[in-house]
């Protein structure tokens, strides 16, 4: 005789199935989460990380190969060559044209003014002149010539200047010439 469950029995059994099924499903779900997490870790640690490291090593060796493609000796001689070019240009640009300055001095000196010594310092861009002029008036004219030569001279500074007295045949003192010292600041 086939025993068939009544509707009441069936409804009562449902509650028991639920109580037994939930923990089981939770366990399966947690296990899946755990295994997924473990899988992600293993994939990241032993897969992606190793891949990245191998890519870094590969790029390093590519950089090495690239730098070796031009021999070191050739690189050095090229660096020296380009440094020579730069330095030559720098020296030639910075170098002061001394012969030109002496030509300037010749052209811009009054006929009755004489120089005992001229000291040109191209590093400091100064010229120290010790000279002789017939009188203070001529000296002032000479200074004015330098002051007006604005293409070459930046500043004229007058140093010690004094009238030298000489004695005539009778032994009395007469005025002689003016010894002067000038400093010229020259333009770059």
């Amino acid at each position, binding site marked *: 005789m086939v025993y068939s469950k009544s509707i009441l029995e069936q409804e009562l059994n449902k509650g028991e199935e639920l109580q037994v099924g939930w*923990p089981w499903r*939770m*366990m399966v*779900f*947690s*296990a899946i*989460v*755990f295994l997924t*997490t*473990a899988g*992600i*870790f293993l994939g*990241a*640690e032993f897969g*992606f*990380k190793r891949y*990245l*490291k191998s*890519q*870094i090593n590969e*790029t*390093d060796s*590519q*950089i090495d190969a*690239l*730098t070796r*493609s*031009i021999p070191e000796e*050739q690189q*050095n*001689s*090229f*660096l*020296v*060559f380009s*440094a*020579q*070019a*730069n*330095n*030559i240009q720098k*020296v*030639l640009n*910075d*170098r*002061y*044209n*001394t*012969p030109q300055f*002496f030509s300037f001095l010749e052209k811009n000196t009054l006929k009755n003014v004489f120089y*005992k*010594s*001229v*000291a*040109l*310092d*191209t*590093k400091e861009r100064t010229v120290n002149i010790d000279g002789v002029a017939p009188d203070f008036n001529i000296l002032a004219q000479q200074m004015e010539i330098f002051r007006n030569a604005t293409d070459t001279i930046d500043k004229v500074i007058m140093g010690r200047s004094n009238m030298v007295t000489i004695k005539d045949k009778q032994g009395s003192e007469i005025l002689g010439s003016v010894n002067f010292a000038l400093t010229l600041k020259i333009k770059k």
Partner: protein
Amino acid sequence: MLVAIVFFIGSLVLYVNFIKPTYRNIDLLRAQLEAKRQQYNDYKSIIDRLRPVFDSFQSAFQLQESFSSMLSTEPMVPQAVAQLNGLASNNLLRISSINVNELAVASQKSVLLKGMGTIDLNLTISSNSYDAIKSFLQNVESNIRIFDVKRITIGRQENTNAFNVNFNVYAYYQIE
């Protein structure tokens, strides 16, 4: 139920203690890789642009020689002295003294900006001819090896017409 909780806690422990540090490492490695790739691309573009320059540089022997004559790669003090003496002789001048002083080399700013060494040559010349002195100065300035007249003092000798000239001439050399 207990096993589910153990799995769940295990997942959390795995995440916090293993996955997070691994991801931090991965981020660093990715940044490192990106930097290396950028470096490779930069090098490649520089080398691609420089290669024609290198090729033409290899064949520009004459230019290299000219540069080395103007700015030698060694101090070559005897050569500088001989050249100045030769220029003086050409202008019928006689050098009465030479004093050589090698100046300290300024520190290099970078590997690519190689500096220069400087030799300070102090010469004393006596001459009756101002034109000869001027011509000597002109020859010094146009010499193939670069000379740079830094100081020059011209003065008359007492009771004679002769000039006493003192020069400070810089000769340079390229530091390799």
